């Protein structure tokens, strides 16, 4: 500290200058009105900003995953399947190549992967390790708005992932009907929400990670990935385990993708079931997450 600082100015004057120099342009009442209205967006904004901190991972996953899977499954495996004369029925009598058949499933899977990444350790860590939820929770934001903001931010990440993935599908010629095919981006996002939001609600309740997340990965994500009509039509599975597909958001999301991507035909009622089931799971998960966040942060 310099001589001048030591002798200069009364503490009160310094305090006034240093602390209250800049007054808030909003009164607390005005702040509360704004936050009640837009709080979820404020938190989503921050969520996306923080994502930039691991932006490289987001980008590498978004670009790397489709490349790896499309070369591995779509090109490698497809050459085997297609030369063996297996035909993938589009439902209306026509057939499609294996690459076209598997592409909507790969896209839907990518959304599920992001969902399990963003709704497990990050959510639990926000309560337990980094405690990132407690700071904003002391601001005018409500606990429910933290959930809403997370859902919005997570939606943006899903959009980045599925959008990039779709571009690669086009490049690889994996979409027969791009005119409706691009809507797959949204069916995949819906699938990601249907899986991610219930998972978020679950993670918000966990006090300790005793390997539950590894179990989720091994006994939920992997089986869903394998038995949801991903690599082969669900009908080729024995009836006894076909139910795995029926309860799997991945199957419903994939089937929607197939309709959009190559005009896979199925009864309209079944399509309605796909949409309704995914929407229901997502909304139930969202509501539960709001409840669990509010309870845990209000302790």
């Amino acid at each position, binding site marked *: 500290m310099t001589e001048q600082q030591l002798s200069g100015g009364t503490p009160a004057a310094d305090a006034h200058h240093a*602390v209250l120099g800049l007054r808030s342009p909003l009164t607390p009442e005005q702040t509360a009105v704004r936050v009640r209205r*837009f709080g979820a967006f404020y938190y989503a904004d921050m969520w996306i900003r923080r994502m930039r901190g691991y932006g490289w991972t987001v980008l590498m996953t978004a670009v790397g995953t489709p490349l790896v899977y499309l070369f591995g499954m779509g090109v490698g495996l497809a050459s085997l399947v297609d030369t063996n004369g297996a035909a993938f029925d589009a439902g209306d009598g026509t057939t499609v190549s294996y690459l076209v058949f598997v592409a909507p499933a790969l896209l839907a899977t990518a959304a599920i992967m992001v969902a399990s990444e963003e709704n497990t350790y990050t959510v639990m860590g926000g309560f337990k390790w980094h405690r*990132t939820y*407690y700071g904003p*929770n002391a601001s005018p934001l409500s606990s429910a708005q933290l959930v809403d903001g997370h859902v919005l931010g997570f939606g943006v990440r899903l959009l980045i992932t599925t959008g990039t993935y779709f571009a690669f599908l086009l490049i690889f010629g994996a979409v027969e009907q791009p005119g409706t095919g691009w809507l797959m981006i949204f069916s995949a996002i819906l699938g990601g929400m249907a899986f991610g939001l219930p998972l978020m609600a679950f993670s918000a309740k966990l006090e300790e990670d005793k390997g539950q997340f590894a179990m989720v990965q091994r006994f939920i994500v992997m089986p869903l990935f394998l038995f949801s009509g991903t690599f082969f039509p669900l009908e080729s599975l024995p009836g006894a385990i076909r139910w795995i597909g029926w309860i799997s958001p991945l199957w419903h999301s994939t089937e929607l993708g197939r309709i959009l991507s190559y005009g896979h035909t199925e009864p309209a009622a079944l399509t309605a079931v796909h949409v309704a089931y995914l929407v229901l799971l997502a909304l139930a998960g969202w509501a539960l997450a709001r409840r669990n966040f509010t309870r845990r942060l209000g302790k």
Partner: protein
Amino acid sequence: MPQITSTPTVPRTASSTVISARNLRKTYGTFNAVDGISFEVPAGESFGLLGPNGAGKSTTMKMIGGVSSRTSGDLSIMGLDPDRYGPEVRAHLGVVPQQDNLDEDLRVRDNLLAYGRYFGLPKSYLQPKADELLEFAQLADKAGARVDSLSGGMKRRLTIARSLINDPKILLLDEPTTGLDPQARHILWDRLFRLKEAGVTLILTTHYMDEAEQLCDRLIVVDKGAIMAEGSPAALIREHSTREVVELRFGSERNTTVARELEGIGERLETLPDRVLIYANDGEAALEAVSSRGLHPITSLVRRSSLEDVFLRLTGRSLVD
């Protein structure tokens, strides 16, 4: 969610009450964390909650902070019930939690900007305000640093800077200096004192008596969820202790036996395993009385009574875990 159409106006005079609690109670299952406490805090006052671990200080702070709902009783902050008007109450406050919860994914300055956004504040205000607060918290040269590279004291100062981003009139500080070294504590005290001078109402919990004496105009001593005493530090010392204390050490084995021979000296006598304390208004006179009885302690010390004496008298010397 309640919608506010007309905003309540609170008169802002020096004597207006900003926080009022009546029979405030918080129960977890069968455990009464806060067991019916009442207090009022006028604007501009520096008000302390003192108590051992588990006394219910943090729970009280969370209820005032509008993040934890009360089980029963009345509570109002700026005339508003935090259970009903959570966002309105929190918009009035700056909060420094017991455990730092800075955003480690963001840089130092960005932590301030991000937090300000939660209040819906515009960037045109937040940018210069963040710089002003970094200056205030002596962190200007750390603006671009990663949060995890900061020392404990720096993180604490950043947390205080963050709590001021919305220009609050009330600041809640839950054990602001726990775990800091003396240098860091003194810097913090200085900053808090400046805020107090600038008219900010400070509500702080602490179990450091020197901190309470430095910063609090008035305080309550809380134990097991209830208020044991209330007053200014000086008044509490007057009321619950003597002006001075004589500390005598006769050796661990002899303290108890010697204590019997000291009866009658001073106002009160307390025998501890390692020393005997004589509470007296004139310490030197008490010490002379000790020697005149032919007793010669290994060491003796006459000191002023402190808040610590009051605290230990009111909350006991047994260890609370």
